[in-house]
């Protein structure tokens, strides 16, 4: 493989100047680089969201505390929720979609490489616009759910809600563009022989996620448009005095919001479904069932939204209907957990860091799933909704589930992405600290919720029995923070002097491990022919039904590599993203800016479209 060194991104970078390197990243359309950009931006936002959480935990460490003001606390939980959902977990998943989908389906890039870069730059601008609110001292304070009519101009007159609304709108555009891109990539760019049922389960879960993204985001886009018109142009959608119903927002928000929960968890489920077989050295148990249950979860995900609204008074019929659909959705989820257990059963389990995090996922997600079943019953939900019991529940799902799953993926694919192995010992310390800290933080919150502590309160009285466990929870939060310092330390240490990773350090089962670490810019010198879900395993060990491994293919020739064409870098994605932000942020400043930004956006869309229309004169027939 050393002969391909000249095509590796690393080798190319050495010949560039500093500004050349910067420019090469700003204009990149390589899915791997876009993936790295997504991953590193998401991790920084994750740290910001984490610091917000720590400040909140400090404030709640004791009753009647005055570390931060009521206003600041409300801003903190709003930004913490918004950041973690839209700027940390979703883009961390997007990082893996970007980097891994083409590698695992045997493709050289995504279907629309420039659109992919555009998605990233729009995401980054949306995140930055949202955080610009700190600089303008108008930090969003309506909660990540932004319930109307508290967000109306009457009750939130400052620009804080505007920043939130516009930021979310921009992030939604980014997610949807990426969603279309991955949908087409997965359907249309699978290597020959990779039928739908031969797709790795991570690809399947990503596939379902993309459907959820492109179908759920329009609902919040509309909800935000209505809010924008209410705030800027005097419409009455959420104005009770004119007959408008604030519950309309809740319905539209949760039509988006519940699929969003699955958008956050399905990629992690996909990662776990890759990591467990690799380290148990055994195929995923009941893979078709895991796939179908993923599809069921995705489909039912559109029919359960009102279980977030059992307390609003929808009437017994609606309560009962949404209760039943919610309980139904628990079936495929439970089935998945048992399939993962059976994957381990009878295996030969190698205990390496990626597996630890996947096992952590199963252990913790089970807890979150089961407490979720409790809320499926509306009478029980009426006691638990908007209490810390729910806070504990969804942190067991989104931290114990998504974050553990994503870190499993990070440890698993790190050597593929960087070419260096992360330190196993530090990895395990990270895991145990995170596991311990996580449970110390969030397990007591179940209890706090059951003894009546509501969510989103910046202070509480000292005579309600909440004091001790709040303090414990705060201590746990700092243990989690410490565990991430260990992770950062691990990254720094191994980047400087880590073990060099072989193409296939874990004895992997899928195609990404068949190419060098890190992969060359074109990924596959020769597009593979696929015969099995665990194609690489088949090539190495046979098909598991007694079939011998196939003979080694002939080495790749220089001519084959010379015939590969990769799309050239492009400046248009980043410029277009900037123009869109100019347009959207104009709503905060002046309508002239909106118009100028809009025209600029149109012009740049034209340039973007025309870039590949006719590369040069004379090529026409």
């Amino acid at each position, binding site marked *: 493989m050393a002969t391909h060194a000249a095509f590796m991104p690393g080798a190319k970078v050495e010949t560039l100047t500093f500004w050349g390197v910067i420019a090469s990243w700003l204009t990149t359309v390589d899915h791997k680089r876009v993936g790295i950009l997504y991953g590193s931006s998401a991790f920084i936002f994750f740290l910001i969201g984490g610091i917000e959480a720590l400040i909140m935990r400090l404030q709640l460490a004791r009753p009647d505390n005055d570390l931060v003001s009521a206003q600041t606390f409300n801003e903190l939980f709003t930004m913490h929720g918004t950041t973690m959902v839209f700027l940390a977990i979703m883009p961390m998943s997007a990082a893996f979609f970007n980097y891994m989908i083409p590698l695992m389906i045997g493709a050289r890039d995504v279907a629309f490489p420039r659109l992919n870069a555009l998605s990233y730059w729009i995401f980054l601008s949306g995140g930055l616009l949202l955080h610009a609110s700190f600089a303008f001292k108008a930090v969003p304070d309506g909660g990540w759910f932004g319930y109307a009519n508290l967000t109306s101009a009457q009750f939130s007159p400052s620009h804080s809600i505007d920043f939130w609304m516009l930021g979310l709108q921009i992030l939604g555009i980014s997610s949807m563009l990426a969603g279309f891109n991955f*949908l087409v990539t997965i*359907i249309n760019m699978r290597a020959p022989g990779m039928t739908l049922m031969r797709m790795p389960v991570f690809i399947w879960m990503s596939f379902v996620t993309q*459907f959820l993204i*492109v*179908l759920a985001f329009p*609902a919040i886009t509309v909800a935000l448009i209505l809010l924008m018109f209410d705030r800027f142009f005097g419409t009455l959608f959420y104005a009770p005095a004119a007959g408008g*119903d604030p519950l*309309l927002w809740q*319905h539209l928000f949760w*039509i988006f919001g519940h699929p969003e929960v699955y958008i956050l968890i399905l990629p992690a489920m996909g990662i776990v479904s890759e990591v467990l077989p690799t380290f148990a050295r055994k195929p995923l148990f009941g893979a078709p069932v895991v796939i179908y249950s993923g599809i069921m979860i995705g489909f039912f995900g*559109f*029919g359960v939204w*009102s279980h977030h609204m059992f307390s609003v008074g*929808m009437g017994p019929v*609606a309560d009962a209907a949404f209760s039943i659909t919610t309980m139904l959705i628990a079936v495929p989820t439970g089935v998945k957990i048992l399939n993962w257990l059976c994957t381990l059963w009878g295996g030969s389990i190698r205990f390496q860091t990626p597996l630890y995090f996947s096992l952590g996922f199963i252990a913790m997600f089970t807890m979150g799933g089961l407490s979720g079943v409790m809320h499926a019953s509306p009478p029980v939900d009426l006691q638990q909704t908007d209490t810390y019991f729910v806070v504990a529940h969804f942190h067991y799902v989104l931290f114990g589930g998504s974050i553990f799953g994503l870190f499993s993926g990070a440890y698993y694919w790190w050597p593929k992405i960087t070419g260096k192995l992360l330190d196993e010992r530090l990895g395990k310390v990270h895991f145990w600290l995170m596991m311990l800290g996580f449970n110390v933080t969030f397990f007591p919150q179940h209890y706090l919720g059951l003894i009546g502590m509501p969510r989103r309160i910046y202070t509480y009285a000292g005579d309600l029995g909440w004091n001790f466990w709040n303090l414990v929870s705060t201590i746990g939060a700092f243990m989690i923070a410490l565990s991430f310092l260990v992770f950062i330390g691990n990254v720094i240490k191994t980047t400087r002097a880590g073990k060099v990773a072989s193409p296939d350090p874990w004895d992997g089962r899928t195609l990404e491990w068949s190419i060098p670490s890190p992969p060359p810019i074109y990924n596959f010198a020769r597009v593979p022919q696929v015969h099995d879900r665990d194609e690489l395993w088949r090539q190495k060990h046979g098909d598991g039904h007694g079939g011998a491994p196939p003979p080694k293919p002939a080495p790749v020739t220089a001519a084959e590599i010379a015939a590969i064409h990769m799309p050239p870098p492009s400046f248009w994605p980043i410029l277009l993203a900037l123009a869109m932000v100019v347009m959207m942020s104009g709503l905060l400043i002046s309508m002239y800016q909106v118009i100028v930004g809009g025209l600029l956006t149109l012009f740049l869309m034209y340039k973007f479209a025309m870039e590949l229309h006719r590369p040069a004169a004379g090529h026409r*027939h």
Partner: protein
Amino acid sequence: MADHGTTTATHGGGGGHATVRTYIQVAIALAIITGVEVATLYIPGIPNPVLVISLLLMSAVKFYLVVGFFMHLKYDHQIMRALFVGPLLIAVIIILAVMALFSAFLLLPRPH
């Protein structure tokens, strides 16, 4: 570029391949249905539920004609059909559910 042309021909037209003749027939059908729709509105004495249901049916037929013939979905690959029809069904179900939640059905067949 000949080969490119054949690619587009097979993908653009698919198997059944609508012709200009078909397009014009479809357009005439659409015009007639629209005419009937508007005319129905001016016929006195039609019970409201009948009016609503017949209007919805007629617009569904128009919808199908445009999607099936003008957009070639009738002839196109099943992946394309799934990509459009699936979301369309989810959207329709959600509209119906939202109407139920807001008691909007009570208002639909409203007497004049």
